[in-house]
């Protein structure tokens, strides 16, 4: 298949960017989206041009490094996949594909389609952990955990930290990401101990970094490649309210 690409090109963090048109031809429908970009880049290198920079690593949908806002949707037109698992059969021959970086104040563009998501790390550093050191912990089976809660915690813990929720949200809010971690730890007795401090610290850090507020539009849930539920956001709101009131 042949495609027309409109790709955001920006030489560096502080330079101005613009959309540049490219044409790719004879792309296999079985290729992944990133392999299509690899082909474009190999052509660009052969022509002596600067290849398009984009983040990617594991290419099996789990590391959370790949991003890309493709035709108006984070991770493109397929549901519940990351860009690296998006395949070209989801596009039509001759289609124009617009590729943009994640857009949010806390996610500045580094180059082309690559953004800096270290804000997510800062939020985790503010409280997304259980404050225990290595060693001296009780036996793993000493605290039974209700299976339903363990499963809900796992649902939340499946977050890969890609930032699609922020990219999709009209307000660039990070509530789904933050609430997934808050929920996971609030659902487990090990995390419950410092749940009140955690939720307040993480929310404060999220606000400080300049993410927007949650309007409960649920675009984050619709676009999350791991289908993290907005019930986590409600749980975080609840945790927050309880922490403030008690």
């Amino acid at each position, binding site marked *: 298949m042949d495609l027309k690409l409109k790709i955001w090109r920006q030489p560096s963090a502080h330079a101005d960017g613009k959309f540049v048109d490219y044409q790719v031809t004879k792309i296999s429908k079985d290729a992944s989206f990133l392999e299509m970009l690899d082909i474009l880049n190999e052509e660009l290198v052969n022509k002596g041009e600067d290849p398009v920079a984009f983040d990617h690593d594991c*290419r099996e949908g789990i590391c959370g490094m790949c991003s890309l806002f493709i035709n108006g949707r984070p991770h493109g037109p397929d549901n519940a996949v990351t860009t690296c698992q998006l395949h070209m059969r989801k596009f039509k021959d001759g289609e124009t594909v617009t590729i943009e970086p994640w857009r949010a104040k806390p996610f500045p563009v580094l180059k082309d389609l690559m953004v800096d998501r270290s804000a997510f790390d800062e939020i985790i550093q503010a409280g997304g952990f259980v404050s225990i050191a290595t060693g001296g912990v009780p036996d793993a089976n000493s605290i039974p955990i209700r299976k339903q809660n363990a499963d809900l915690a796992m649902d939340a813990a499946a977050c890969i930290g890609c930032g699609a929720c922020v990219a999709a949200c009209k307000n660039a809010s990070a509530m789904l990401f933050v609430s997934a971690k808050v929920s996971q730890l609030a659902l487990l007795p090990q995390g419950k101990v410092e749940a009140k401090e955690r939720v307040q610290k993480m929310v404060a850090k999220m606000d400080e970094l300049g993410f927007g507020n949650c309007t409960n539009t649920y675009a984050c849930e619709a676009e999350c490649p791991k289908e993290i539920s907005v019930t986590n956001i409600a749980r975080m709101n609840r945790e927050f309210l309880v922490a403030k009131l008690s």
Partner: protein
Amino acid sequence: MTKLDSKIPAGPLAEKWTNYKAHQNLVNPANKRKVDIIVIGTGLAGGAAAASLSEMGFNVNVFCIQDSPRRAHSIAAQGGINAAKNYPNDGDSIYRLFYDTIKGGDYRAREANVYRLAEVSNNIIDQCVAQGVPFAREYGGLLDNRSFGGALVSRTFYARGQTGQQLLLGAYSALSKQIGKGAVKMYTRREMLDVVKIDGRARGVIVRNLVTGKLERHAAHAVLLATGGYGNLFFLSTNAMTSNGSAAWRAYKRGAFFANPSFVQIHPTCIPVHGDYQSKLTLMSESLRNDGRIWVPKKKEDAVKIQKGQMKPTDIPEEERDYYLERRYPAFGNLVPRDVASRAAKERCDAGFGVGSTGLAVYLDFKSSIERLGKKVIEARYGNLFQMYEKIVDANPYETPMMIYPAIHYTMGGTWVDYELQSTIPGLFVGGEANFSDHGANRLGASALMQGLSDGYFVLPYTMQNYLADQITVPHFKTDSSEFDAAEKDVQERINKLLAVKGGHTVDSFHRRLGLIMWDNVGMARNQAGLEKAITEIKALRKEFWQDVKVPGTNDGLNVELEKALRVADFLELGELMAYDALNRKESSGGHFREEYQTPEGEAMRNDNEFMYAAAWEYKGDDQKPELHKEPLIYENIEVKQRNYKTA
């Protein structure tokens, strides 16, 4: 003749680690903050070690290649993590886990290390649960276990099909806690390009800031490499795109011996290659072999018709199918270990019975399981894997058999380390997949996660402290010494040289060619002629690379092509060492199969009299052959046997 001292503590096997800890040197809390440690890599081993060392009070500087420490490739491990908890009461014990690991590794791993691994495996589970890792649980609220290849007990803890992710996020959260406190300084998007030695000890690193292109100098009292394996040398592998062997290779060139480089694990159940644009191979969990039956057509003409697309697998009647694993290994059938299953698939495809458009695939068929158990049961067990397969291949595994083919997955070989996980460069420690120590010639499923976390949480924090005990009076190092100047200059020259070639072919094109040479000659089946041919071809390719590689752009900023060129330049050297090692090892063991050394039935044949050793290679100069040092492997607590999967 040997310079190798494995420093295995004296005493009975079960007491070695306890004795070591009881007698090791410690650093007093007030002195720990005077000591700096550099950790390269934030996977299970690096992340866990950095967090633990920092909790103890050391100054820790951590570097990772991705944009966040949460993305290291440990995250992609699916199946689970072994531990000798014996929660299911099925007769497991530390000794049994130790025994299975040594046997699975085809008797090429060091007893004392493996025993320690089995010993601390239980602490890992406790630690992870305390961190809030959501392991699978039973309705009673206790932890669930599943069984895995190479074991007769259920000892594998898991978190759905994302165990690696959950364990890594546990280590990442511990690391984040320390970063948040200001106790760890984290450097992301940095790639280590050299080790700096001062007076013979590792005292720092040169890293490249991947965003700005600047070379940076960092000094410390000790350096830990936890940079993973070098499977990407084959171009196509299940590794992440940035996984590379450069850190280990640079350490090798600075004097750290490299052990058993030819021991590579090839995983039998991956999605086959489907086009020359393909960038990586995707693993399908080994658990599929529990209910899937592997077959190819009995008649070659049927295979040819399938390859041409004139016939569908469902057109082939039962009696025309060759369930070759069940035929060859009646006792274990489709559940033989990874190396055996991979070789059998290759044998069939090489003989012309392969399927798919390339002829390099075999069927993994769930038809009889669906008939026996019903679609619902199969869906509950493998639904997510089937869905993933369908996303990638666009075929429905409920209706048509899956196609699979072996792919490079893990490297058992790595930097040689002693019992303390210290390399032959004093002060340079190596953990996780990057070292060679625990898996011998073949790794069992669910053991990689165990080793990474064992090294990171429970071994390195002790052994590094032992090393650092006499370093407390050594002041913080400055980075303006002549040693740092020289190391940075070396790196800068290598970069300049690559940029100056301005040849006609992309880095990837060289990488693909290297991968093909390796896959054909240093892959699943090896022989003397092929290995010698590979060495000649790699040398020629390396020469061509340095004359004709095309690296656009400059070093003043993000330059992905330059990053790749630096890695491939190192792979082009490491590949040759792998071939040397494979050529030297005139036996078949685990993942290393030499066609000359097989039983009449085509099974691997070890030569314990001559090769029961770890081969540690010493760098002697670019134009010199590396020197082989042998670390004899002594089995005092285990009876060495030939592996047999034909009869139970």
